[in-house]
């Protein structure tokens, strides 16, 4: 399986990533399905749990991560996905540093023979990335920076896959 894993300040190009997934697998003619996920910076963030602000329009965002640990965790998530589903290629790219509304944040791409493993692995990787990978978002609204709260819905999303293991 071809694995591409990058943490970078620069933007990424979906077409380039798709082309890599489509062409560089050891068995390109076996690929029947490619699923891509792209996460983008939304302009409006909901109200914080801990703060009394009303949410509002984002000036921008800063993404911090833990170099060394993040790569290790993401590689572990990709390896887990490859254990669960027959995958031909996986790409994960996560940006760090300063981002503006509408910017691309994260890319997950999965190539497989069939659509179900591709969909499920892409969703699995995103669910685990959201709950386990060492990234932290700080958003700025009206000039005020604040750290984003983690979401219960993300924890619930990741737990779906745990339940599948038990069953």
């Amino acid at each position, binding site marked *: 399986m071809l694995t591409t894993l990058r943490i970078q300040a620069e933007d990424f190009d979906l077409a380039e990533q798709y082309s890599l997934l489509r062409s560089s697998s050891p068995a390109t003619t076996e690929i029947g399905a490619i699923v891509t996920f792209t996460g983008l910076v939304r302009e409006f963030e909901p109200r914080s749990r801990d703060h009394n602000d009303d949410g509002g329009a984002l000036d921008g965002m800063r993404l911090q991560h833990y170099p060394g640990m993040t790569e290790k965790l993401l590689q572990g998530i990709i390896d887990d996905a490859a254990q669960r589903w027959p995958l031909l290629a996986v790409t994960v790219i996560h940006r760090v540093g300063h981002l503006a509304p509408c910017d691309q944040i994260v890319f997950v791409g999965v190539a497989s023979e069939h659509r179900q493993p591709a969909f499920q692995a892409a969703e699995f990787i995103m669910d685990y990335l959201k709950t386990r990978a060492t990234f932290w978002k700080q958003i700025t609204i009206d000039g005020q920076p604040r*750290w984003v709260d983690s979401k219960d819905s993300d924890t619930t999303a990741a737990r779906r896959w745990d339940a599948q293991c038990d069953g």
Partner: protein
Amino acid sequence: MAENPATGWWGTLRLIRLHFFGRLSDLATQVPSRCAGETPHAIRQWLAEDFPELAVQLNEPQVLVSVNHCIVDWQTPLTDGDEVAFLPPVTGG
């Protein structure tokens, strides 16, 4: 500020590198980047003396601790050169 155990003459020297992330990083700008300590828990207690606001956050149950990039128990024994990081809930993606 309490005497940094890393610089004391007593006991075994365990020089530990410290990292703080997310909202913890804003409260830890004055914390020395290295200290000594037998466990992450001991380091957290030592930090409480001089950084009470940080200590409140470190005691939140959602805050995890890693040693050399592995999530560990707060009572894990540390050895010289270990890298300890305090991790609030992650919010990437």
